[in-house]
């Protein structure tokens, strides 16, 4: 941090790359407790995003994030489409028309994204969804930044919390999403959406620290 709009786009590309690399893995996770499409859907959505990015050169961060969100909504489908789409749209609204984002923007954007997901999906922590990765991550990041840490370090703490959140989803029963139909049988499997959230945060952290 600071993160220019151009760097933001590179970061989004990096996220797309991570999801493409983890396409089979995420789909595999979804096949255990869902319908075996999460990796496919996410990769497809970020491909569409990548095709949109060149047109966004020169645009502000809010516009970029909102466009990413709208693109995800209109290409991903399933549960992840509206959820991640809403998240990026809300993040875009939160940062407004800024050209360069600072640490405070990052926190604000994350908070808005998570709020959006919760509104859209009506899930709470403990329901075995992406919320179980995102919310602890947000809390860790917010705490680190409030304590004066810089963005890279804060995000690293967030990633650790998200990873713990993914681990936590293994032990609980799903109450939202397709895995909820499984009841007890959902125990023992990590949630695909929590995993993709963790991978996204991890890529962001790597990008911000190492400019991956």
């Amino acid at each position: 941090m600071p993160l220019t709009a151009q760097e933001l786009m590179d970061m989004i590309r990096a996220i797309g790359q991570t999801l493409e690399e983890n396409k089979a893995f995420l789909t595999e996770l979804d096949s255990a407790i869902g319908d075996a499409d999460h990796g496919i859907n996410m990769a497809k959505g970020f491909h569409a995003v990548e095709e949109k990015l060149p047109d966004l050169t020169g645009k502000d961060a809010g516009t970029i994030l909102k466009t990413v969100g709208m693109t995800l909504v209109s290409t991903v489908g399933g549960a992840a489409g509206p959820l991640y789409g809403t998240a990026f749209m809300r993040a875009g609204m939160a940062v407004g028309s800024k050209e360069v984002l600072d640490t405070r923007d990052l926190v604000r954007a994350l908070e808005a994204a998570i709020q959006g997901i919760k509104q859209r999906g009506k899930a709470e922590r403990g329901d075995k969804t992406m919320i179980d990765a995102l919310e602890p991550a947000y809390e860790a990041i917010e705490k680190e930044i409030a304590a004066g840490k810089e963005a890279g370090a804060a995000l690293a703490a967030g990633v650790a919390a998200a990873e713990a959140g993914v681990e936590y989803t293994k032990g609980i029963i799903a109450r939202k999403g397709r895995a909820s139909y499984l009841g007890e049988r959902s125990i023992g499997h990590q949630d695909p959406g929590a995993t993709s959230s963790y991978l996204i945060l991890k890529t962001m952290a790597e990008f911000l620290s190492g400019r991956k």
Partner: protein
Amino acid sequence: MKKLINQPDRVVEDMLAGMAAAYPQYIRLLPDLNVVVRADAPVKGKVALVSGGGSGHEPTHGGYVGRGMLDAACAGNVFTSPTPDQVLAAIKAVDGGAGVLLVVKNYTGDIMNFDMAAEMAAAEGIETASVVVNDDVAVENSTWTQGRRGIAGTIFVHKIAGAKAQAGGSLSEVKAVAEKVIANVRSMGMALTPCVVPAAGKPNFTLAEDEMEIGMGIHGEPGTHREKIKTADEITAHLTEKVLNDLPFKSGDEVAVMVNGLGGTPLMELFIVNKKVAAMLAERGIKVFRTYVGEFMTSLEMAGCSVTLLRLDEELKELLAAPADTPGFKQL
């Protein structure tokens, strides 16, 4: 993966093109949107019905577009709900000025995508209403969870709400009768084999040569449990008991029956299943008004079946018996 396809990531587009080529008298496509609409849409003054969901359940949903059933169907990718853009485009293409009913199956993704579309339609001044089908008794119904899934019972919603709309019902009347169907329809399924999502290229789960999955979802979601395969009579008794006990259906009730194949099960076996269903209903003093045996809500090439019962009253009987003329469901 052994499939008659060209490119795994183009199956939906290819399928819809082949469907439109087959049935110009019934349907047309909205360009680049994977949306099937009635050839004569919008029908002025008629409440329009829009449904949709992931592909791979054919003839659901596009097959039910036509006179007396749906006005439009939105085809998502295989087993993935369509996007709000698709649903919005469908709504706009079929709205005849009397409002649009969205028939949604109870999956997180379907609900969110249709909801977003409804919000967008409202912003454009089109009135919509939604119903959510959740007939699958395999899944516990609890306010703490997502609730039950929508499966083959959805076809009865399309048929009956479609007949009501065709007969000139208002949006609130069409919605009310759709909700009556939902309140009275229950289903349960099972699978003998998995299926292969083309883009994934391998089975979404595995079953041993002597195993079956009870309560299987239509997207290959695991069911309630696995067990050794049994006779058709035993399997049917289990599914039908679960369905009967859920509502519950009682002596003196009159019902419609649907024995639905999941794609890979021959019609022969579905009739063998229906023999047992009919016997069980007769034993319990439940009268059968109509029976439908065939493939209505499939899961690609999965082998298995589901049993659906719909409790009928006079209104539902009349609407169920009304003619329908669609590629996938015809009634004279």
